[in-house]
Structures are given as C-alpha cells and as structure tokens.
C-alpha cells in the first residue's frame, strides 16, 4: 500500500509526458515566452512604464511555467504502444535462436 502511494507520488513529481506532448510543450514554452516578452516591451514602451513591463514579463513567465511544467493530460494524448513484455505472440516455444535452429 505504501509502495503504491510512493509510486504515484513519484509519477506526479517526475511528470512524464509522451513524445508528442514533449514537442507540444517545447513549442508552447518558446512561443509563449517570446510573445510575453514582445508584449511587455511594447506595452512598456508605449505607456512609458518600465515597472509595468517588468510585471507583465514576470507574470507571463509564471503563466508559461504553469502551462508547461505540470504533466497536463493533453501532453499524454499519444502514449507509445510498447510491445508486450516477453513477446508472447512471436516466441512461444523457442526463446533463443542459434544458426536458425531452435535451442531448447
């Protein structure tokens, strides 16, 4: 029971996502940070307010972290279909093949 809980905690902390999710997460992080930076600079320059620019940039970065870091479900929409353990379908009898003869 304790082991199961520890496994769950470890999964949440590690936050693994699938390959498509990794691609998506990287795209979201780069685009969001760039857009936030551009908005912060433009708003700050147009309103001549450097404090506002800093807060927009920091706030936007915090939002980006929230969007990217946790393993949200949409990052796990394309799980990898691994082969089954032991490969029951192909090798039922011979476990080792040497010189195309089955070794028993």
């Amino acid at each position: 029971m304790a082991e199961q809980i520890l496994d769950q905690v470890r999964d949440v902390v590690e936050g693994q996502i699938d390959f498509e999710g990794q691609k998506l997460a990287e795209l979201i992080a780069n685009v969001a940070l760039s857009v936030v930076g551009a908005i912060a600079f433009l708003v700050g320059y147009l309103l001549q307010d450097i404090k506002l620019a800093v807060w927009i940039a920091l706030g936007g970065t915090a939002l980006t972290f929230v969007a990217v870091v946790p393993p949200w479900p949409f990052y796990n929409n394309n799980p990898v279909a691994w082969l089954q353990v032991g490969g029951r379908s192909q090798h039922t009898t011979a476990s080792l093949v040497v010189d195309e003869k089955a070794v028993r």
Partner: protein
Amino acid sequence: MYSSLVRIQNTFGFFTTVAFVIAALIAASDFITPRAPSVGMLKTTNLQVVRGRPHYYSSKKEEYAIIKFSLDADLSSLFTWNTKQVFVYVTAEWPSTSTTGVTIASNATANQAVIWDAIITSPSADHLSNLGPAALKKLRKSAAGKAIDPSRGKLSLKNQRPKYQITHPSGKIAEMADVTLRLHYNVQPWVGVLTWNQGVDYGLWKQLSGGLSRKFTLPGLKKKEEAKKTS
C-alpha cells in the same frame, strides 16, 4: 521535455534569453528618444572667500570660496521610461595659473570643483531615494499615477547656497580670475549605459545648450570682523 524537471530547466533557460533581449531593446530604445536639455540661466548671485580649516584639529588654514548661484534649467527630456535617476551637479572651473600669475593657455579648465549637486529620481525609482518618510510621501504624491514625470527635470534655483565650499590644493583661492560655473548631468538608466552631458550632438541627443556661466573673479578675503558677523 520528458520530465517536469527538464521542462523547468528548459523554460527558465529560454526565459533568461528573452529577458536579456528585452533588456537590450530597452537600452536601445534610449537612442531613439530625443534629448534636448537646456539651461536658461546660470549665474552667480553672491561670492565670498573665507579662511577656514579643512577639519577641526587642523593647524593649516585654507581659503574657501562660497559661491551662491541661481539656475534655471530644463532637463525634462532626460526623463524617459528607462531613466532611473538623473544626477545634476554644478562645478566651478578656472584655469591653472603659474606662480607668476600667468594663465597657462593649454589647461583652460585645469581646476574643476563641484559646488552643488542633486539626485532627481524617476517615479519608478522613488523607493531608492535617500529621503525621510515625510519627504518621500510628498515626492510620491507629486507623481501619483504617473510612470514618468518629466516636470521633475525643470530646475529653478534662486540664490542657492552651495553644498560644498571649494578650495585649491595650494590653499589659495581668493581673487581667482576667469572662474566659470558649469552645469553637468549624468543620466542613470535602469538598463543601459550611463550618459553624461556631451559637447557634441549624437544623433537625436542634442548637446546641453547653455550651462556655462559668465566668467567672474572671486573676491578677496573677507575681513575678520565681517566674517564673524555673517557666521
């Protein structure tokens, strides 16, 4: 981007890049902002030379010039979103003289001493100013709701007492001729390079117009009785 830790590292890494680029853009935005500081009037109103000691226990007596002045200056164009504070100072300058009293032509401003200075903060930097709570509250109120306040760059001083009484390493300054006052400024930005008043135009940054007083001669030493009366 496999695990949370890797995503934190990658996102933070790109954040630092973005922050650096924005800082560079902010610093560069200074160069497309015109600057046209001007000094309407800078003149002395009262000149005095007294004898005094550099410190309480000194046995050496030196001559100190007390130069009161009036100043009208418009430095409001120096206050942009990237301005943290502007340091304004007034110097007295006089040429070097040889022992025979002949002016050495090559060092027209061989001597330069600050007689007055001030720090003008931008509203974004009011929390950094070296003021008491009451004065700080007043300063904040004066710019309430404003991100920048160029009106702080408008200086108007009438018969201003100098902050510093100046002397010369030789200890002699009475009857010094060809002394001028000059206004200087130093813009300290949030990001970017420090800039001082320049002698030539750089693009949109015009040189300080005016800022130099007429030449004057310091008076002789005050008589002892007079000096006592004033102090």
